[in-house]
């Protein structure tokens, strides 16, 4: 390694101000852009959710037209998924992967910039529909035809917004794969990579495999609406259900796209605060790979009521249930990592522990949903809404929040305010359960989802849910406060921020230099076995 390059230091050349952010090719800058963007979108999507919860506070229509309610539901789902959760994970990947694998930057830095800068434009397209005659799309985030084809002017804008988000995701994923496969420091074999890197490698494969399929699905809708094709029209020999197959071939892997990086983050946090190596590294890797593989053959569990032949129902039921096995392996391995460790409960660990409990609850309801006869009762009720908010909010979003607290000192060079952060955690964790747990009961008692008004017997539970929602929403202001305070100052953070932290990113100073590793790290910094101290 003695022939390693002279690192050019061109820092003086960096443009300043907004132009720096627009033209940057630096993985940290771009990571920051992604994270800020996703936080903004979390608030936008959250604001829509607040309107939903406000309308559902009591029966009867108080605030909006039913159609506008549907627009809110649709945009809430789309914005949260494509604007908040996915970009947040990409942002974390941008920040952390080069540092974790000992690289100076991403493999394709210019394209990295483009991946990000498409996103604001895509969201602009999507959100601009709110101001169009006829309003925003109102067909649900799943955009099923023929209903979606009834959308007005908003329709093509929505479709093209999806296309742009797809292009952005695919480019981001290509970059991540190229980085991981190509820029690892000498000595870091695949099976020595940190779990977060592994989870993203596999997520990126998923993204490249399914985002184009989504693009295909919405393109077919576009053609049906404007060019007289018959993909989804039985009269011409098509089938509305065809859309659902194509959509969920994307959609189910998509939900794992939103959880695998979360698994990665949790696999970083838990060993650190347990001061103990991750249990079962290789089985964790295989588990992620199996989940990813299985995710391609379970899609029709979202369509058990569409009248598929019995054999298809059975196949998709069994394959779906199988996913519980590798996911269980992960949960058990995390538990075993904590087992007989030396646990401390800083905010990242609190979020990780909450993740363990609450994601598992979401997984349990997932397995219940997989049972076809039972799903005929649960389907399209608040039971499903409860399921997916447990896995998405107390799963994915909690992991993101935990990850942000975990790495914030590394990024900014300052410790965040632990007290404030813990307050944020407790408020968030408790209100999330007040918000989502009663939804199970609502669903079982018969409340369908995507309705702006409901029979009066659901009032009490809905009020509790709404109150939980408002508290949850308000608590997120603390999150922002924590971040802003931490960026502006605070106790200096050391290089190894957390006592139990291991990995290349902790060998760099906090904040790390502009180009993370201009020279590959010394091989002895890479563990003989990851998460092992020997």
């Amino acid at each position: 390694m003695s022939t390693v390059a002279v690192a050019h230091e061109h820092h003086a050349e960096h443009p300043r101000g907004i132009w720096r952010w627009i033209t940057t090719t630096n993985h940290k800058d771009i990571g920051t852009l992604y994270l800020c963007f996703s936080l903004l979108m979390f608030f936008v999507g959250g604001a829509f959710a607040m309107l939903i919860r406000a309308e559902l506070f009591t029966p009867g229509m108080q605030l909006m037209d039913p159609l506008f309610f549907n627009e809110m539901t649709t945009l809430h789902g789309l914005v949260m998924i494509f604007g908040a959760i996915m970009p947040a994970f990409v942002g974390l990947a941008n920040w952390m992967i080069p540092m974790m694998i000992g690289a100076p930057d991403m493999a394709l830095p210019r394209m990295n910039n483009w991946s990000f800068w498409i996103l604001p434009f895509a969201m602009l397209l999507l959100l601009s529909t709110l101001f169009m005659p006829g309003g925003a799309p109102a067909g649900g985030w799943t955009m099923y035809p023929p209903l979606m084809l009834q959308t007005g002017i908003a329709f093509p804008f929505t479709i093209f917004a999806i296309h742009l988000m797809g292009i952005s995701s695919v480019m981001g994923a290509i970059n991540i794969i190229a980085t991981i496969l190509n820029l690892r420091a000498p000595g870091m074999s695949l099976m020595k990579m940190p779990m977060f890197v592994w989870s993203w490698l596999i997520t990126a494969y998923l993204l490249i495999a399914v985002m184009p399929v989504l693009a295909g699905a919405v393109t077919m809708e576009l053609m049906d609406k404007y060019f007289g094709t018959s993909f989804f029209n039985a009269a011409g020999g098509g089938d509305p259900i065809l859309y659902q197959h194509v959509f969920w071939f994307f959609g189910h892997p998509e939900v794992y796209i939103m959880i695998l990086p979360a698994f990665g983050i949790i696999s970083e946090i838990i060993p650190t605060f347990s001061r103990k190596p991750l249990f079962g590294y290789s089985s964790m890797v295989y588990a992620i790979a199996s989940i990813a593989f299985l995710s391609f053959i379970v899609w029709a569990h979202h369509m058990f009521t569409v009248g598929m032949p019995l054999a298809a129902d059975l196949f998709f039921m069994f394959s779906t249930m199988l996913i519980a096995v590798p996911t269980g392996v992960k949960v058990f391995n995390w538990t075993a990592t904590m087992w007989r460790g030396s646990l401390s409960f800083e905010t990242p660990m609190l979020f990780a522990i909450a993740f363990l409990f609450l994601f598992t609850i979401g997984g349990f309801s997932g397995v219940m949903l997989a049972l076809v006869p039972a799903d005929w009762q649960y389907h399209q009720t608040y039971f499903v809404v409860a399921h997916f908010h447990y896995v998405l909010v107390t799963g994915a979003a909690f992991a993101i929040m935990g990850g942000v607290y975990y790495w914030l000192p590394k990024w900014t060079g300052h410790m965040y305010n632990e007290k404030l952060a813990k307050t944020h955690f407790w408020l968030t964790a408790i209100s999330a359960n007040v918000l989502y747990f009663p939804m199970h009961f609502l669903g079982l008692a018969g409340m369908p989802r995507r309705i702006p008004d409901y029979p009066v017997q659901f009032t009490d539970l809905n009020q509790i849910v709404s109150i939980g929602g408002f508290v949850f929403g308000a608590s997120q202001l603390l999150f922002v406060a924590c971040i802003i305070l931490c960026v502006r100052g605070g106790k200096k953070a050391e290089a190894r921020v957390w006592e139990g932290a291991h990995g290349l990113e902790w060998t760099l100073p906090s904040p790390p230099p502009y180009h993370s590793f201009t020279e590959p790290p010394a091989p002895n910094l890479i563990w003989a076995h990851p998460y092992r101290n020997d």
Partner: protein
Amino acid sequence: MVLNKVKNVLCGVAAALVLISGSAFALDLNMPVGVTPMSHDVYDLHMYAFWVCVGIGIVVFGLMLISIIWHRKAAGHQPAQFHENTAVEVIWTVIPFIILIALAIPAAKILVKMTNTSDPDMTVKIEGYQWKWQYDYLQNGFSYFSTLAADSNAASQLDSGINPDSVPHYLRNVDHPMVVPTGKKIRLLVTANDVIHSWWVEDFAVKVDAIPGFVNEAWIKVEKPGTYRGGCTELCGRGHAFMPIVVVAENWDDYQKWLAAMQASHGAFINPATLQPEQNGSPVVYAPAELNFNAPTSAQLEPVAAVLPAAAQPAVPGTAATIVKPAPKHPAIAEKTWTMAEAMERGKKVYADNCAACHMPDGKGNPAMGVKAIAGGAIANGPLAAHIALVLHGKGIMPAWGNQLNDADLAAVITFERNSFGNHTGDLVQPAQIKAAR
């Protein structure tokens, strides 16, 4: 410490919420056991899966909690350094697998039962429309629409000022319920006219998507007489929350009486409780059955005429198939001649039942949905022929009413539209004009 105080307060709030939730619910928090053999099976499966999850949860969460409580740094616990153990990994791969098999087997069994729609005693076709249901008693030759009850509809308007609590069965009541006999296997043929809907009555454990261009099958066998309520469960646009399902189950004799009355009613819906005709909503439409719907195999599902003359059909004992009665497609009321006052009165009703969902009770339309205004609208104040044509044939989201309403009602509602909401064309439309325009 501040933090602890916050924690205490929060715990207090949470506890209070739990208490409130515990006491304040008249509502059952669990899935109902229901009134069909399937709903019992599904309930059992649901509870079984639930307890399995609880069991696993106790073990997994228990282990986590033990770690969290005992293996704390603050408690001075020193970290162990183990990080692998093939034996336990195999164990916790195999055990969940076995548990899943134990779940999958009963689920598969129930599923097979649920999808077996063969050998029914009778067949009803259900068609979803934006935003109402149509029940077609194929073997009895009549069909009718079922829309949200008027009082619910009024109360559900934005800022209606009507307290939903004061409306009986708010959003769970319709003008014309579906009526079925108890103790019979009823095959449901579910489809849709415009977008996808889904027909769900929780007490029957039937949820089946209504897909335009395709017919899905399900079956029910209701054990107890009663009124069962549900609603559309697939997002179908603005009125998705407002297309409830009400099924009245009656014993066989009462059901027969209702059937007979329906067939003799000449277009009015017969209230199954009072057996009196009701003139609300859209009328009953008659059409003779074309197929022998009880036949179990496809070969026998040839058109009735091709197999046997209708009269000579072997009557499946105790079924409704025996009382097939051909009737004119449009009832006698279509031959009527309206006076202005009559037409306006009837038209107002038809408008409220069918049109107000989109065009709004005040006729102002719904720009958000692209629904044009009737009040001052170009068509409603323009040439009559264009008005009739548009209402008959529809346009985009605007349904084609020609196949949903009879001539008399169409004439009435068009008359109403042309003379209300500030429109003063003075036109009186007669059913004959509609007939001619069809």
